[in-house]
């Protein structure tokens, strides 16, 4: 049953084919068996989940359901604050932090009736593409345990691919939902900036961060998005637009859909030939269904990575300044004064990648450098946004690879941050432009590793992505749960 989609699990609970307790117990058992190897969860809520499952079953006996996910066990990236439940953001500095509040996403998932299984592993403060920067050790790719599950939402993608939950919610600042979804062979959507509330979602780079689903099917992703999307008065950057019927969009035909192929995404070095072939096959599938392919240009793509690595660290350097040991989280033991306490707390509490980015960001915002770095990067960002506006005047969606390569080996890139940063080269422009992007499985490499295709859409047109991704999913059937040596 761990292979069921979220939607079928929800239907079976609702129709009393299975109780929420049986379903939850089964998944908890799998977590107990596999998590020590996969390390997808940093916190497992065994007792609480069973208690919540019981409450779901009792409510159902009385003919009441809380919402569309009634009784279905799911996971949350450990970046979403959960009231009374430790929320670490993958960092030592928050290893003991128990929020007195729920993130808006947490609240929406819980009030849809879902049972929370636990909090999922991630790169520290979402800074990474492999989950290797987590204070709790790397998560592993269920398809090949010596490989990374991607990041930063690697724990969530690994849990979904290993059948350790029916769906999860991750976050994406530069590809942190789509890249792990791609390398774990599952579906991951980064919604339009402003579509999902950021309240209670621990900030990495505020102008880029967005929460979104990681699931085993496109309709599952559509379901999760309809649960978590919507305006939130507590987030001034969330947009007050109605939430459309995303599920309905997954059933629509791609006939007449204009699909753009950005020249620049296929030109550069570093694109794995297997990945290229899989994406080309994906295009063929779409055109065979009546979609129309068009070559387009996104000329400023090559500046995206540089602009991103100024803007994201700059915002992060300010967002992470609050972790000073004064009010919550880790505090260094020291006899010295205030400055020493704060410095040592941060020296002990943050890992190397976080420190690197805080320093880059602090430098970029410094007097005398601000215009040359932050100011310039913002201008590049505007140019990239215009590139997409121009492209979307001609096409409805844009098709690209999600990640230039399938999952790389654990430890392979940790010594070389720049190569690591290149993992996100295809996903970053989407965040800079604020548009939605989805990764959908489109093939397997010769080594048997999943490959994902990325679709980018117009602002607040997630329906277009669901429509095209669902067509790909129907036409290229692939296993969504890794065999885990059980086959």
């Amino acid at each position, binding site marked *: 049953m761990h292979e069921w989609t979220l939607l079928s699990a929800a239907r079976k609970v609702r129709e009393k084919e299975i109780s929420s307790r049986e379903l939850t117990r089964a998944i908890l058992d799998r977590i107990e068996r596999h998590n020590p190897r996969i390390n997808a969860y940093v916190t497992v809520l065994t007792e609480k989940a069973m208690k919540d499952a019981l409450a779901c079953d009792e409510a159902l006996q009385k003919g009441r359901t809380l919402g569309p996910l009634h009784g279905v066990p799911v996971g949350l990236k450990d970046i979403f604050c959960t009231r009374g439940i430790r929320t670490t953001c993958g960092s030592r500095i928050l290893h003991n932090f128990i929020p007195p509040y729920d993130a808006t996403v947490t609240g929406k998932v819980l009030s849809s009736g879902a049972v929370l299984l636990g909090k999922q592993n991630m790169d520290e403060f979402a800074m990474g593409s492999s989950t290797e920067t987590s204070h709790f050790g790397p998560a592993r790719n269920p398809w090949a345990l010596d490989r990374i599950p991607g990041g930063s939402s690697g724990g969530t993608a690994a849990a979904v691919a290993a059948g350790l939950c029916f769906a999860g919610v991750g976050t994406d600042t530069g590809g942190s939902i789509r890249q792990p979804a791609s390398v774990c062979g599952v579906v991951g959507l980064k919604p339009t900036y402003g579509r999902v509330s950021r*309240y209670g979602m621990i900030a990495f780079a505020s102008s880029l961060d967005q929460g979104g689903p990681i699931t085993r099917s496109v309709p599952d992703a559509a379901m999760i998005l309809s649960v978590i999307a919507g305006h939130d008065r507590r987030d001034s950057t969330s947009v007050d637009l109605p939430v459309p019927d995303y599920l309905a969009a997954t059933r629509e035909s791609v006939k007449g859909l204009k699909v753009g192929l950005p020249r620049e995404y296929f030109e550069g070095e570093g694109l794995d030939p297997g990945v290229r072939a899989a994406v080309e096959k994906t295009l063929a599938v779409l055109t065979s269904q009546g979609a129309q392919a068009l070559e387009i240009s996104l000329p400023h793509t090559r500046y995206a990575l540089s602009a991103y690595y100024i803007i994201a660290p700059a915002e992060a350097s300010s967002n992470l300044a609050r972790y000073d040991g004064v009010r919550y989280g880790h505090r260094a033991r020291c006899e010295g004064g205030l400055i020493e306490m704060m410095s040592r707390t941060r020296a002990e509490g943050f890992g190397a990648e976080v420190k690197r980015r805080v320093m880059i960001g602090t430098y970029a915002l410094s007097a005398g450098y601000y215009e040359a770095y932050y100011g310039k990067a913002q201008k590049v960002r505007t140019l990239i946004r215009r590139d997409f506006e121009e492209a979307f005047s001609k096409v409805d969606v844009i098709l690209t690879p999600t990640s230039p390569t399938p999952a790389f080996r654990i430890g392979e890139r940790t010594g070389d941050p720049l190569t690591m940063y290149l993992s996100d080269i295809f996903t970053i422009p989407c965040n800079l432009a604020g548009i939605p992007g989805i990764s959908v499985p489109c093939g397997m490499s010769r080594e048997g590793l999943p490959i994902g295709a990325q679709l980018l859409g117009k602002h607040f047109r997630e329906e277009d992505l669901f429509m095209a991704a669902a067509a790909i999913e129907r036409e290229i059937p692939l296993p969504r749960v890794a065999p885990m040596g059980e086959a």
Partner: protein
Amino acid sequence: MEFEAVIGLEVHAQLSTGSKIFCACSAAFGAPPNENTCPVCTGMPGVLPVLNRRVVEFAVRTALATSCAVRKKSVFARKNYFYPDLPKAYQISQYELPLALAGHIDIELEGGAKRIGITRIHLEEDAGKLVHEGEFAGAQASLADLNRCSVPLMEIVSEPDMRTPEEAGEYLRRLRDILVYLEVCDGNMEEGSFRCDANVSVRPMGQKEFGTKAELKNMNSFRNVEKALEHEIRRQIERIEDGDKVVQETRLWDAAAGVTVPMRGKEEAHDYRYFPDPDLLPLIVEEAWVEELRQTIPELPGEKITRLTRTYGLSRYDAGLLSSSRALADFFEESLAVFGDNPKVTANECVHWKEAIAAGKISPETIAHAVEDREKGTISATASKKLVELAIETGRPIREIRDEKGLTQVSDTGALEETVSKVLAANPKEVESYRGGKAGLLSFFVGQVMKETRGKANPRIVQEVLKKTLG
């Protein structure tokens, strides 16, 4: 050589909104430590600020009342620095694009009016406060009270247009009065809801360039601002006359010692790494809303003073005293509506009883009736004061008390002639002496008449009747 000072003031006014600028917590002063806090104002992970509309409304009204141009688009920025009273490690403030620019306030000086320019008005959040166990330097522990975190502040920066401490004092008082008139700030300097820093420099008379300035802090009353400026100007002039240079620095006013001292610890040029806050959208203030708010601007102190002098013939001094509070000026005019024959006397009474008036313990009728009775001679000045006091104490109508206590004076000449005759008949010797030239005996007769009438006679009338009768 003669010197002149150049003074500019930065005022931080705490806006008297019910809630804080970026969360729903109460902004009230005096709650138990950390009572008025929530995840947002204590900078918990993942929380976001949401701008309080009322704060913007208060600032726009202030901008309109000081003739500033309200910008359609302004931007909140983050000012980054580490300190335990600043939970997010950045203060949300307006930096490059403030809410309002280029206004002015007219102040009144002995030599006439003067216009002081306002550079900008912007919004920001306050920080919390630290309580140290023991002396700061050797404190065993420091406790953070975050109640004040995110309480809304409005910063009003003046142009360096003031030349004397008196001008600075007048500007501050006028600005405070305007904020209080608008009901956007309680103007209390002692409690810190109206704070002032001063930039001051001196230059030889006639020189165009500014001298090197010092920034003065820690002045918690209007009088202290003037005293600190006086001291600092003298200090800078003395340095220059001694051949030294003025150093650009921040100095604290030590009110007890009456001197300014350099701020301890080096205030090195801090790099605050300002950048636009990505959690808040640019603030857009629509023209229609500004016009709507313009309609809510009351008559301001300057306009009121001019009107009171023109309408009631008051001196600018008296009109100024009355206009120091909008409620007092309103009270004055309400009193005049009941009895308006002598505005000058009514004004004096209002100023005399202003504390009771502010406390709401006295009605306009009380003052009007007291003035009217005195003007008509029905009561004496002494009785009038006594009656107002009793009215405050008991809350009863003043005339009811007057009649009950029998404090009316007899001013009726006819009624007094009888008593006068009686007194003169009883003191023939004195009458003879008076007529023989002992004019001083007049007061003896007055005393006797007062005694006979048990103090109710109007002494002025008694004198008149006596003089007439004695010939």
